[in-house]
């Protein structure tokens, strides 16, 4: 499978990365090189093979559903580009 420039633009939109026409053209070639490389996997017989979900066989650890941490809104907004009263500030979303 290979991608065309329109597909690259659509995927970039999904990934929320702005690309110029030139970027998209260049990336099309690069992505196709990678997709061409991974095409080798078509040679592998995967009939009846389970997909790997965890490299280490262990049952998922569980913990009590309790509050273990909190009261650190100042820490959480510490690195925000814009914040006010422990809220993250963003451009207007709803008119």
């Amino acid at each position, binding site marked *: 499978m290979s991608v065309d420039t329109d597909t690259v633009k659509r995927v970039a939109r999904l990934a929320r990365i702005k690309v110029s026409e030139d970027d998209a053209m260049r990336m099309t070639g690069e992505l196709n*090189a990678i997709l061409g490389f991974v095409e080798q996997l078509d040679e592998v017989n995967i009939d009846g093979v389970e997909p790997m979900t965890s490299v280490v066989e262990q049952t998922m650890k569980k913990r009590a559903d309790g509050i273990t941490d909190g009261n650190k809104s100042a820490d959480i907004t510490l690195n925000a580009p814009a914040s006010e009263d422990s809220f*993250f500030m963003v451009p207007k979303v709803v008119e």
Partner: protein
Amino acid sequence: MTDLTKLTIAEAREGLKNKDYTSLELTEAFLGNIEAANNSLNAYVTVTADQARDMAKASDEKLGKGDAGALEGIPLGIKDLFATKGVHTQACSHILDGFKPAYESTVTSNLWADGAVMLGKLNMDEFAMGSSNETSYYGDVINPWRKKGSNQDLVPGGSSGGSATAVAARMCMGATATDTGGSIRQPAAFTGTVGIKPTYGRCSRWGVVAFASSLDQAGPIAHTVRDSAILLKSMASVDPKDTTSVDIEVPDYEAAIGKSVKGLKIGIPAEYRMDGMPGEIEELWQQGIEWLKDAGAEIVDISMPHTKYALPAYYIVAPAEASSNLARYDGVRYGLRVPGKDIVEMYENTRAEGFGEEVKRRVLIGTYVLSAGYYDAYYLKAQKVRTLIKRDFDLAWANGVDAILTPATPSAAFGVADQDLHSDPVKMYLNDIFTVTVNMAGLPGISVPAGLDKSGLPLGLQLIGKPFDESTLFQVGQIIEDAAGSFEPEKWWG
């Protein structure tokens, strides 16, 4: 007085205990080396000199009271991927501009609890994506090694290029690093240092900036096998904050060093003999086989038929996981924000300006293979191939193999801005061909310096072990180190 920066961690541990020197003296010696070398090598993105001195003084007090931790007073460098409280933590990306976490990663917490001293944060490929340390927002790291009679700058490998260079150039005693596809072992091999990626789940990933969560593992880079054993012992732990960290006691890895390898079965996988592999790599591998044979190990030929599919499967799994992990960088909660006419354009502008080319490439590949209609053809298939890769290893262990010996990399360090490697992203990816299988199967792997090529550059051998059997890797790695000796670049910098 002896040059304190030439000591191993094991030697410094004794010297500090015997009061031959203080941690402050040791720390000052390394800060001096960093100041002299960093302009040429660019290994550190930030140096925490004041903090280092304070930590060293506290260590000296503890040493005075006979209350020393396992790493008391040992100066270390920390890869920029580890969250360090109040200190530059950006995965060497523009998108995390100014990020200083209010928390400390579990791995570094463990190191400080054992008394280690932080010298600063180390350069790396952006978000650990790269094999040459040329994707960092903070510029290329330069390998302290050069070809005989050449002035050409070489890459230190990646993504832990800053860690490997800092160790090789004596800018720290040891360093933390991380490995998703070979990012500890390949730079270690390129710089004549020792690097171990432990079993997936051995070190907590909490507070380590995520790249591909099912593959990422932290580990150390150091001068000797023993030093890497000392560091891993402190870094590893079970952690309630990382459910994939495993509740198995961390053994005393040093106890394995010096043990005979007589009767150990070492597997030699035929499929690691790649077409076009340089003769010198093949010879090095043969040399390693001879060394282990001489030490009494039993050499057995094994077959791992799915080896060649590990790299293509990796380039589906890793970008897929990266595309979801990196979705969090949107200009809202931390780092860079580039305004736009609405919130979506703000996201798009921020991510366009904040991510470098390699990161964008992988996010796009990941987004594509996970997008509607392609999941089964790519991601699901890759995860099935991954099962087969792991099965190859399981079969070797079931046949009594104790460890597997392979080359660490298909070549020695290459030049900065190599035209051929930059013309096609896949060519750069091939650097990880021998290391990536280990991540796909979640196994431990160590790279040990084993010789120099004709141009005088270091080459490494890789040992792959059974899950949570890092001890055997240290045991066998020491045999290689004893036979090969140690390698020091000729000093040309500052």
